[in-house]
């Protein structure tokens, strides 16, 4: 792991260490497997949130269709797992053995052609990246080359989310319909359901998450990131300076789509099923909310936003189902009205200066990184 002062500045390094400590050490040590698996589920949304930081926070492109890419990634993974779970010996009671159960229920007798390549894990992994990436490329090219942006783009991506949901629900025989793809069992013969597998999958996911954080941070620091910000603030000036605004927007949108797809694939692995209820309009907007709550300008903030909002959702909707929607609605309004930079903005305004002052008085001591871990998680 290369951490130098140029890649992360001091407060970012603190954020990085705090997040790594919580995700790699504290949570696995303190939580039981069930809760850890829940955290793994929350973290799949963190991938989407990181993508949204790039695309929305930096690029200024609000996409309300991230659920589409999350879903595409998740469905690609789920199709592979489902095929493996529906081997001939597992499905010999069906009228056509060897095809997924929902196809059998819908009187489909042969595996459709677009399912065939998902027998291969290599193809599946490529598809998880390429399918959503290409889809985002098509949408992005069509929209941004014609200078459609802002609210229009948001509404059209939302329509795409609606279309994909209706399509998945409507084409039961090919997609599993409203129930989605359930009963996923093994990955290349390795059972993903028992506790030790869930722990391994959790760590795989966290490593992938940090890889994505690294990529996002890299993009943010290069000239590309600066052009994205410039574009958000003064699109015309960037265009007049000779940059192709559309291409940069397409790039940011595709990156966000790929991150979301990785999140979706990890969701299918960790949670063990995929359904259209993670594709549509409502989950897509919720993903934007995680980013907004965490801070649309902060990569680490977005990860914390995804974890905390989902944690609040689980615990509040368990104990006060009535209050939860009021709370969530109020949270949206409060974040938008009162602190548009989310939790990371609050942290930067109120907590960071105090910590800086603390360090300023203890300057001779060199071990400030230890302090930051002891301070616990940022943005709480």
């Amino acid at each position: 792991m290369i951490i130098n002062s140029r890649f992360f500045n001091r407060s970012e390094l603190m954020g990085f260490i705090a997040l790594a400590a919580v995700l790699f050490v504290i949570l696995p040590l303190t939580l039981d497997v069930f809760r850890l698996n829940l955290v793994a589920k929350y973290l799949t949304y963190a991938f989407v949130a990181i993508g949204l930081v790039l695309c929305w926070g930096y690029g200024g492109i609000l996409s309300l269709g991230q659920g589409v890419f999350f879903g595409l990634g998740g469905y690609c993974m789920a199709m592979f797992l489902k095929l493996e779970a529906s081997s001939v010996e597992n499905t010999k009671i069906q009228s056509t053995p060897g095809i997924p159960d929902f196809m059998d229920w819908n009187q489909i007798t042969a595996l459709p052609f677009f399912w065939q390549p998902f027998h291969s894990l290599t193809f599946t992994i490529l598809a998880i990246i390429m399918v959503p990436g290409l889809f985002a490329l098509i949408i992005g090219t069509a929209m941004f080359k014609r200078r459609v942006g802002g609210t229009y783009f948001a509404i059209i991506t939302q329509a795409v989310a609606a279309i994909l949901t209706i399509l998945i629900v409507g084409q039961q025989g090919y997609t599993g319909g409203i129930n989605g793809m359930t009963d996923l069992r093994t990955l290349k013969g390795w059972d993903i359901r028992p506790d030790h597998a869930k722990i391994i999958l959790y760590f795989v996911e966290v490593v992938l998450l940090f890889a994505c954080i690294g990529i996002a941070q890299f993009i943010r620091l290069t000239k590309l990131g600066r052009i994205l910000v410039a574009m958000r603030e003064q699109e015309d000036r960037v265009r007049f300076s000779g940059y192709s605004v559309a291409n940069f927007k397409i790039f940011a949108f595709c990156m966000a789509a790929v991150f979301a797809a990785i999140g979706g694939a990890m969701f299918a692995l960790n949670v063990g099923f995929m359904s259209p209820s993670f594709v549509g309009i409502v989950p897509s907007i919720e993903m934007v909310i995680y980013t907004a709550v965490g801070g649309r300008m902060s990569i680490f903030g977005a990860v914390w936003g995804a974890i905390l909002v989902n944690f609040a959702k689980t615990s509040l909707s368990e104990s006060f189902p009535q209050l939860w929607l009021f709370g969530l609605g109020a949270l949206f309004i409060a974040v938008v009205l009162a602190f548009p930079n989310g939790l990371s903005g609050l942290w930067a305004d109120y907590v960071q200066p105090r910590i800086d002052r603390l360090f300023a008085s203890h300057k001779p001591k060199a071990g400030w990184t230890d302090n930051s871990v002891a301070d616990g998680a940022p943005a709480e």
Partner: protein
Amino acid sequence: MFGDYSIGDLGSIFVMQGFAGLILFSVYVLMALGLAIIFGQMGVINMAHGEFMILGAYVTWMTSNLFQAYLPSLFSGYFFLAMILAFFASGALGMLVEWVLIRHLYKRPLDTLLATWGLSLMLQQAYRSVFGAREVGVELPQWMLGSLRVTDSIEVPINGVFVMCLTVLITIAVAYVLYMSRWGRQVRAVVQNRIMAGAVGINTEKVDRYTFGLGCGIAGVAGSAFTMIGSTGPTSGQLYIVDTFLVVVFGGAASLLGTIASAFSISQTQSTLEFFMSGSMAKVLTLLAVVGILMLRPQGLFALKVRK
């Protein structure tokens, strides 16, 4: 796909499906009118529009229950009072929301989307707590039941005809208010150039508030009309919100005529396709066509030519 039907049958099918499409068209127009005012004129993305509509539907339901309990003799006419009440209830809530929430966000249109989505969640939960999670349906007065026989094979339901007449009347009223009245001129002046409008003495904040109120009020009337053809639940509004936004965007955001034309084409395409394939595929194809056309022509069908 036409193989099994005779020419006469096909004619009847197209007329009947066309009529079903016209009812859908009415719902779209009623919802889109309010949204066209709020989104097209003010640039505010109101995701809670469906919930304002449902408020109108619940007001209608309560009025019908009150009439049934206390004034059964006047029951046949309750709907007209209910519609007025729905307009004022949704309009008043709209003005309150504008005052508390929207007026702080005019410069950040994407944030209005998030804030009003939050509002829609709260309203949905409020409806669920007050009216219950189950869908409610109003009792129609006697004269609205049954259907008109046009020919041997063509029948049209009376409540559908009523909703369509209502749509036409409301559309004419909105067009009159926006394009003929003094207040409508003020609204359009503020939309075109806020600073100049303020400079010539228009109270732009007040105009904003009443415009938002009017848009929400029309949504309330739409909800009221909606009870005539379907039942109402806490989340019914959400079902239509994306379709309605597409109708408004497809028509060209600032154009009333465009909104009506796009509502007509979308609803007719959908209901005609519905006869030949499953409802979900018909909807997918219609929406895909709309999105495809929007990618080729982002400004919508009827774009207002303004210098920017």
